[in-house]
């Protein structure tokens, strides 16, 4: 017995690392930049880092659920822009002038609601039509961006209430509010995914949809809820991003879907569904954030960051394939 226990202990740690290789990478680049740049390992920079990563990070939390489901959402960047534009513009409506700081309430509510509704629309179409989520959300990505441009008439909006942008730069104790918000959301998403029935169903649907149906899981509603969650997080990211700038532009969030998917895949979530977790995604988001922040501090031009990120994404994919070799003829998207 004791032999087995002794054998199992290191295996657990090793297995954890093999399942989440991204955290090894995060540790390596963290140590590297701490030595390479005198400004990196610094309380203020750590705060900046967390705030910078919170935007992509929030979306990535929702994207993890959708991708574990075996779906994908390409429309998150456009959803982010719509929520930000709605929130910032509704705040300035004359009818809310007398509300004081409460004028932010309907604005933020409308922004978040738009994200949830768009997610529900995507999810419902995927469920009822059986069209691949890639196609449905590719269409939505164009269409929602069109909505943003038509709604804003290609204008930027500025927040009418300064308390809105104050929120973006505020801190609770030593921790920036936005960073705290991201961490709380990550914990909530982790609990949802690992401790609830919905989370378990999410894995089941992505792992083997037919088996999930046979087990009596309502596959459609499960997918719709996950699309609503990613919509909510994209909208929330749009609102936090606009509080940082005190403004919104119709082009906000362009290419964010690609960054988010990169972060989630770096975190070990499989495109085929059924595997992945929030801890890995958190690592993936941090890896991108640390690389961008650290190379910026070392005055590496932003151009090289793009190349290095692309190379790392492909390298991680290659390593993952070598580490978790299942079979040569594994089917892909």
């Amino acid at each position, binding site marked *: 017995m004791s032999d087995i226990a002794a054998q199992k202990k290191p295996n657990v740690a090793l297995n954890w690392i093999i399942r989440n290789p991204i955290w090894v990478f995060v540790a390596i680049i963290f140590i590297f930049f701490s030595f390479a740049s005198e400004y990196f390992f610094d309380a203020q920079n750590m705060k900046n880092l967390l705030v910078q990563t919170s935007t992509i990070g929030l979306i990535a939390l929702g994207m993890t659920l959708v991708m574990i489901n075996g779906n994908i959402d390409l429309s998150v960047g456009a959803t982010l822009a719509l929520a930000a534009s709605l929130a910032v513009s509704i705040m300035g409506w004359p009818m809310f002038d007398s509300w004081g700081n409460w004028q932010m309430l309907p604005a933020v509510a409308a922004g978040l609601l738009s994200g949830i509704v768009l997610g529900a629309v995507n999810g419902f179409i995927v*469920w009822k039509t059986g*069209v691949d989520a*890639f196609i449905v959300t590719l*269409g939505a990505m164009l*269409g929602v*961006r069109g909505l943003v441009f038509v709604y804003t008439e290609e204008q930027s909006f500025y927040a009418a209430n300064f308390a809105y942008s104050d929120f973006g730069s505020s801190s609770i104790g030593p921790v920036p509010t936005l960073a705290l918000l991201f961490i709380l959301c990550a914990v909530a998403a982790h609990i949802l995914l690992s401790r609830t029935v919905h989370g378990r169903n999410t894995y089941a649907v992505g792992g083997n949809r037919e088996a999930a149906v046979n087990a009596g899981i309502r596959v459609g509603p499960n997918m719709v809820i996950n699309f609503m969650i990613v919509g909510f997080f994209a909208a929330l990211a749009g609102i936090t991003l606009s509080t940082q700038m005190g403004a919104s532009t119709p082009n906000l969030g362009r*290419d964010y879907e690609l960054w988010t998917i990169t972060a989630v895949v770096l975190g070990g979530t499989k495109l085929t569904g059924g595997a992945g977790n929030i801890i890995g995604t958190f690592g993936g988001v941090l890896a991108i954030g640390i690389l961008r922040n650290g190379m910026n501090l070392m005055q590496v*031009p932003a151009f090289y960051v793009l*190349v290095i990120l692309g190379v790392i994404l492909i390298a991680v994919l290659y390593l993952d*394939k070598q580490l978790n070799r299942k079979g040569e003829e594994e089917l892909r998207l």
Partner: protein
Amino acid sequence: MAAIEVGKEPASIDVKSLLARQGIFIAFVLFMIGFGIFSDKFLSPENLLTVLRQSAIIGVMAVGVTVVVLSGNLDLSVGSMLSFGTVMVVDLHDKLGATPAIGIMLIAVLVLGAVNGFLIGFLKLNSLIVTLGMLSAIQGLTLIYSGGKNVDVADQETTWFAIFGRGDILGVATPIVIFAVLAVIMHIVMSRTPYGRRIYAVGGNATAAVFSGIRRNRVVFSTYLISAFCTGIAAIILGSRVMGSQNNVGQGYELLVLAGVILGGTSLLGGSGNILKTVLGVLILGFIQNGLLLLGFPYFAQWIVTWVVIILAVWLDVAAKRGRLLSPIA
């Protein structure tokens, strides 16, 4: 994720199978008639040629991407590759002259395509993620190459390079001629040659293709060369038309191109679809844009309509194949 799909099509010609096969063509005709009724300028020859010319760049890229999609993979890197090629050909034009500029640019783009092809064909990595990584990497390469500055051609009036984007051949704008020739050649290659059949075989069932003696790795590798080559041609047209380039000129093209391919009815799972349908898909995108503008809608309204049209088109396709409108999933 494969929407429960049954490959067998009914032999008898009924409305369903007609819709499944020619749905995109019927939609195309309906669109033309609809816009033609509401706008008298829409069906004028000048307007039709304008739309064709505007669609040519996306169309040329879509021809290459269709080949990749038919083999069961994706190529998201074509947008960045278009930026890269355009910046390079415009920049080298003044330094070396037009012919070497075109030659060197095409070689450079083919090398990028070969990297894609090696990673996806020989290392068998997931094409979505590889080309996503390449999208980012090539964007970076473009910026490194240009130092972040915009480039342009100094003597725009005299250079013969202008023929690709601004000139015409026998009265037809050159981009249209290039698009048409490329589409016809690739259609013949895909439908009449053993090579084309191999691509369909690999996309339809990779395992069966391998057991039939098809070298899957090489076939996949070659599709990425074709896609890169088409993108290089598109870069020549774009560079010649604008006579200059920003570093992010191709940003977002990958998804517009893919929208055209999907609208044409090519399955993202591979093995089903063809080049001419992609041409129709791209033209529908172009005519939606043009028609809505003529009717006085704001520019971005076209994207909202595109959203609806893409989903309806693919839904119709999927529904006809499965024989019922709604998905049976609980």
